[in-house]
């Protein structure tokens, strides 16, 4: 229902508001002076004698008038608002009503010059979203499912197969609307075609799944960017979802947004306990499951999977001495970005004895050999997560990330004869044709280095990627977060 604004004066009031009660006797004067409409938010017992008084029970009029406080006085001419004030300010009321000093003269009391009003009922918690859903332009497109016959909404979500195995937050329209406030993008905008079913995934569907994952609205820009990165052709999400191997999208966040939304890059960065880390990663997985149809046992054919398929998302502990991952990958300094990587699980590197970069880099190189299989090469990419105590050993010796990477690449060259099929009495291995060559462990660009973790602990970690790396499978993708 859209009604044109009535010409004359409009007053929005609440019987419960002392300032509204203070000015209630004036309304009869306004009514005599010209057309007057009074919308009362909470009662039929306010200015009830006036013909223009309406009980705004649904709050539609108050909402359409963008009422923030009561009383609000509005003057409308030719269907358009020309003046407004709220609370009681004698001079404003005199000017807007056009009654000047005559306003209030029938009363045997001196009205104060000013009294603040009260908050409008339209802004009470949970109310404004409901009003927007009822009367606003935004119409959510997702199918509405009535579960009123079911006593537990979380169980209803399980029954429908919407969960990753953990409870989800029931995606009610109000919660989804709130989630959509976290992005300026239109709910109906299509982010991309979601594999494996290749169906259009709208911003609204992202929001529905973000609600279920437990996200806050302010996480939406990171989640949307992660989804876009995962949908990049280079990332090869379709194959990654369907593979029998371990990997799944892992999200690494750089830049100011990580701190702004409270992400963890410090102690237990790869673990549990931080809402942003936990729910952004989970939301991407739920989108894969619910929108894309990538469910284990169906098109997700993972033999073992990995715990990161619930959620795997963390931020870099950026340090002025080491270039952040996103910058290494072409993002301008000071900008926020998301990098997606087809991550497996976490393999710790414990080296508590190395005190110089030469020893530590050899130690790390040896551990990196285990990616995929010690005898495989140029298969999976890897992320090396360097903890602050290990990073300090390199930084204090003047080693940049780039120098560390180059040193690792050098150390990870191996004689092909040791890696080929059958070498060492192990059938697994690389092709015979590499027998006389020095073979790099990783393809060019296949080793990513990121700094994260708590300030105590001479540990780092390897997160192996999908063994199908590069054009035949998946390459890491970095995208700037656009707010």
């Amino acid at each position, binding site marked *: 229902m859209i009604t044109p604004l009535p010409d004359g004066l409009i007053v929005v009031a609440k019987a419960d508001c002392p300032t509204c009660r203070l000015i209630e006797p004036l309304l009869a004067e306004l009514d005599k002076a010209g057309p007057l409409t009074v919308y009362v938010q909470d009662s039929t017992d306010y200015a009830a004698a006036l013909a223009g008084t309406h009980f705004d029970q649904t709050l539609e009029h108050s909402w359409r008038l963008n009422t923030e406080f009561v009383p609000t006085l509005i003057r409308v001419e030719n269907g358009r608002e020309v003046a407004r004030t709220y609370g009681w300010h004698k001079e404003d009321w005199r000017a807007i009503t056009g009654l000047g000093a005559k306003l209030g003269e029938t009363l045997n009391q001196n009205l104060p010059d000013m009294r603040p009003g009260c908050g409008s009922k339209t802004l009470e918690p949970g109310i404004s979203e409901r009003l927007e859903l009822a009367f606003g332009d935004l119409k959510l497109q*997702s199918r509405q499912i009535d*579960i009123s016959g079911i006593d537990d909404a979380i169980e*209803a979500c399980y029954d429908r197969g919407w969960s990753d195995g953990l409870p989800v937050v029931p995606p*009610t329209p*109000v919660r*989804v609307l709130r989630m959509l406030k976290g992005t300026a993008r239109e709910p109906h905008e299509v982010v991309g075609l979601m594999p494996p*079913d290749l169906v259009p995934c709208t911003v609204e569907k992202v929001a*529905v799944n973000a609600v279920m994952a437990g996200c806050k609205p302010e996480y939406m820009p990171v989640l949307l960017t992660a989804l876009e990165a995962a949908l990049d052709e280079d990332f090869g999400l379709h194959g990654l979802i369907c593979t029998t191997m371990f990997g799944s999208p892992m999200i690494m966040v750089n830049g100011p947004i990580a701190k702004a939304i409270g992400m963890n890059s410090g102690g237990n960065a790869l673990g549990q306990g931080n809402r942003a880390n936990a729910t952004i990663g989970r939301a991407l997985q739920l989108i894969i499951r*619910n929108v894309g149809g990538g469910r284990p046992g169906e098109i997700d054919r993972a033999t073992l999977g990995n715990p990161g398929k619930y959620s795997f998302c963390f931020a870099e502990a950026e340090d002025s001495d080491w270039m952040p991952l996103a910058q290494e990958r072409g993002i301008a300094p000071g900008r926020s970005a998301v990098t997606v990587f087809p991550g497996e699980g976490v393999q710790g590197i414990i080296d508590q004895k190395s005190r110089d970069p030469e020893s530590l880099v050899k130690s790390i190189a040896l551990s990196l050999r285990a990616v995929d299989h010690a005898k495989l090469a140029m298969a999976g990419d890897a992320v090396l997560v360097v903890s602050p105590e290990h990073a300090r050993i390199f930084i204090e010796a003047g080693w940049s990330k780039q120098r560390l990477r180059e040193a690792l690449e050098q150390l990870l060259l191996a004689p092909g004869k040791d890696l080929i099929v059958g070498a060492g009495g192990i059938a697994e291995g690389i092709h015979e044709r590499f027998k006389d060559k020095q073979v790099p462990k990783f393809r060019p660009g296949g080793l990513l280095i990121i700094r994260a973790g708590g300030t105590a602990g001479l540990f780092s970690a390897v997160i192996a990627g999908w063994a199908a790396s590069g054009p035949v499978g998946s390459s890491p993708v970095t995208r700037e977060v656009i707010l």
Partner: protein
Amino acid sequence: MNETILLDPTAENAPAQRLRLARPDSLQNKVVGLLDISKPRGNVFLDRIEEQLAGMGIEVKRYSKPTFTRPAPVELKQKIAAEVDLLVEGLAD
């Protein structure tokens, strides 16, 4: 907050209502369970069904709930799910 309406998080390729499992084309080589919910004379009904199924050469397994007033115990449900392909249950006396 109104919790009775949920927005579908999926691509909406499946019907909003959950579908029943498809019925088998034939009972050949299937094991049929008969669940007595412990209402009076339920056994009469189920005995007759067992007789007929057995006459068709179909394997039958019998189960009973401790009481019709409560849902089947989890152990019983798991046992039935593990042992039979179909289940016939008598709901009332």
